[in-house]
């Protein structure tokens, strides 16, 4: 059995000047709950969740807002050069079962708690098997 690698879940992205209606449509069409706001160089600027749309747009009846006006700017991310435990720390900190993965500040995708734990245990099983062999 090979060690199970962590799957990177692809993410939805938008531009900072996209309007909230198109963002909501994009989320609905792709059955997603979060969208990452990136600039022309694909560098991560922020994140918009369905909660943001409800609280910052629908509740205030402001449908003409842009992505950059409702996005959460300080997105906790891990870089590909970081260690796995940093991903766990961030998931614990933001109380989420997934964590955005970046490389040189460019969003790559999401890694999930489930996949991370699966990878660690698969790797331990592999080590154990090798020790017995």
């Amino acid at each position, binding site marked *: 059995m090979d060690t199970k*690698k*962590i*799957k*990177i879940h*692809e*993410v*939805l*992205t*938008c*531009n*900072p*000047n*996209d309007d909230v209606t*198109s963002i909501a449509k*994009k989320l609905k069409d*792709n059955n997603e709950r979060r969208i990452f706001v*990136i*600039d*022309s*160089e*694909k560098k991560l*600027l922020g994140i918009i969740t369905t909660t943001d749309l409800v609280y910052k747009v629908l509740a205030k009846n402001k449908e003409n807002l842009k992505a*950059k006006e409702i996005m959460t700017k300080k997105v906790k991310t*891990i*870089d*590909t*050069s*970081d*260690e*796995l*435990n940093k*991903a*766990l720390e961030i998931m614990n900190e933001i109380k989420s079962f997934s964590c955005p*993965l970046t*490389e040189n500040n*460019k*969003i*790559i*995708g999401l*890694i999930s708690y489930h996949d*991370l734990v699966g*990878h*660690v245990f698969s*790797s*331990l099983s592999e*080590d154990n098997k090798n*020790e*017995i062999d």
Partner: protein
Amino acid sequence: MRLIDYLNDTAENLKVKTPAIKEDISDYLIRKDLKKYFSENIPDEEKTRLKGDLEKRVENTIDKYQNELKGFARKTATRGSMGLALLNDLSGYLTNVPFASVSGFAYALFALKTAAELPALYRYMKKSHDWYGATKHIALKPVNYLIPIIGPALEAGSFERMVKKRLISEAKYGFIKEHGDYVSFEEKIKEKLKTPIKDAVVLPDRSKRGKYAAEETPAIAT
């Protein structure tokens, strides 16, 4: 090491080499050679699991050498001959008969003992290939032959001691081979979590990063 510690240690070693009881051998290994696997910082559950494995291993090894440890005919012949040899030496010593006068009978008893254990020694060698132990056992015979009184006493259980030593060694190294240098489960996980993410993930092609990404709606810098 103080003398009392040395004597306690020796007594403990002798105790374990005397009875072929699973618990005694397991306890000996837990206290001595495998103590790092059972130290205070190892969780009780893990210790129980490791102890269970060790006992099973010892039991299997005892089963393997059962015939060599318990052979009734051989034991009767070897213990009987050495008992007689000891009594012969003792009587010679007490009656002031020159040692040379009684040693012939003692040598005959030693020869009888050696002959009685030859089939068991052959079976033992076939199973264990323990050339070191067997050579040591045979090499010590002439020495024991030459020491009156103490020689027969030492020689009496020497074959069983050799087998038990081998048994302990097989159980011990089998256990170490399976469990390796003990690292707690927690430590193993911590070590795994130090893996750089890039080594643990399958990175998508650069062109495919961002499923619904900016290709659809060209990104505009803020």
